[in-house]
């Protein structure tokens, strides 16, 4: 399959976008995380307010392909800031990009709901420090809104 650059207008360019948020570990020395390393930007830490974004580079895009799920996203590089707001209660956190992810195209069409509010497709992954600011780690996956900060 040819690697194609995003061609549709990115859905996050003009306003916030809704999707699913999960969490991942990086730089953690225990558990299955210990082989994961410090992420694509080399700075990722589970205890820092950081996140993974599906379009940090061409190589990243080739792995995540959010456009396959209908959500083309802007190119944002290491250090760029996003604000993630939980659709459950409104708590939000501002984080900076430290890694490539999530693998959106492997979970296309998946929906997560809080109350009657639902969102589809995994668009962002937060570190445990960031995710626990807006939801309990044991929830694993939540609907959210993502905007630039």
């Amino acid at each position, binding site marked *: 399959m040819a690697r194609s650059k995003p061609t549709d207008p990115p859905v996050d360019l003009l306003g916030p976008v809704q999707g699913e948020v999960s969490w991942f570990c990086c730089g953690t020395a225990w558990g299955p995380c210990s082989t994961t390393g410090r992420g694509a930007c080399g700075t990722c830490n589970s205890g820092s307010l950081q996140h993974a974004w599906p379009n940090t580079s061409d190589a990243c895009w080739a792995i995540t392909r959010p456009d396959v799920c209908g959500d083309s996203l802007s190119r944002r590089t290491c250090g760029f800031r996003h604000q993630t707001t939980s659709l459950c209660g409104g708590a939000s956190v501002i984080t900076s990009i430290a890694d490539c992810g999530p693998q959106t195209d492997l979970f296309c069409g*998946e929906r997560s709901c809080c109350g009657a509010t639902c969102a589809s497709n995994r668009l962002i992954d937060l570190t445990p420090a960031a995710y626990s600011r807006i939801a309990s780690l044991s929830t*694993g996956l939540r609907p959210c809104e993502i905007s630039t900060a």
Partner: protein
Amino acid sequence: MTSRRQLLKSAVLGGGATVVAATAMGSLGAEAAFGAAAPQVEPGTPDPDFAEGRIRSIKDNTLLVLGSNLVFRSIRVVDGTSLWKLGPVGFDQAKPGDGLYARGVRMPDGVLAAESVWLNIINIKGHITNITSEKIHLDHHGKEILCHVVPGRSVAIHSDAPASADLSLLRVGQHVQILGAWRPDTNEADIATVFSPH
């Protein structure tokens, strides 16, 4: 049934003087609830109200944790602190060697007064390479993690369908997210929740 549970049960079922009306809760937005919280931490930097590492020792109600950055942190657990180890557990379930994430409030002396503690919690995504008796073999970044189904506890969630104890709809070869509890010093884990996209 402890007296605390009795108090809470009668409060939610019967109301009473100790109960704040639900409507009063609904009228407050998130801003009000978090208004007294610490100001936003600089993005990209470590969150002082969060701790991560492995428990080195436990003394009274304090966990001494060695972070992945090789810095020690003390975490104080109080009555209101929630502890998670594949589900809500008591303080006696915390053991040296457990991996830990904790969120709370950083005290002036550097101790973290914990509101929530999660022990050995992992959230891994990967392909199911095989399903054998009560076990899911997961390929996580090229390494196999053996995930154990715990009867009466493990559930599967297929997209936005209700959670179910029936995991038999999962397929070899599909991609899933598994939230569970790592078994220290192994490549194995116990499953709390399997998230399947379909």
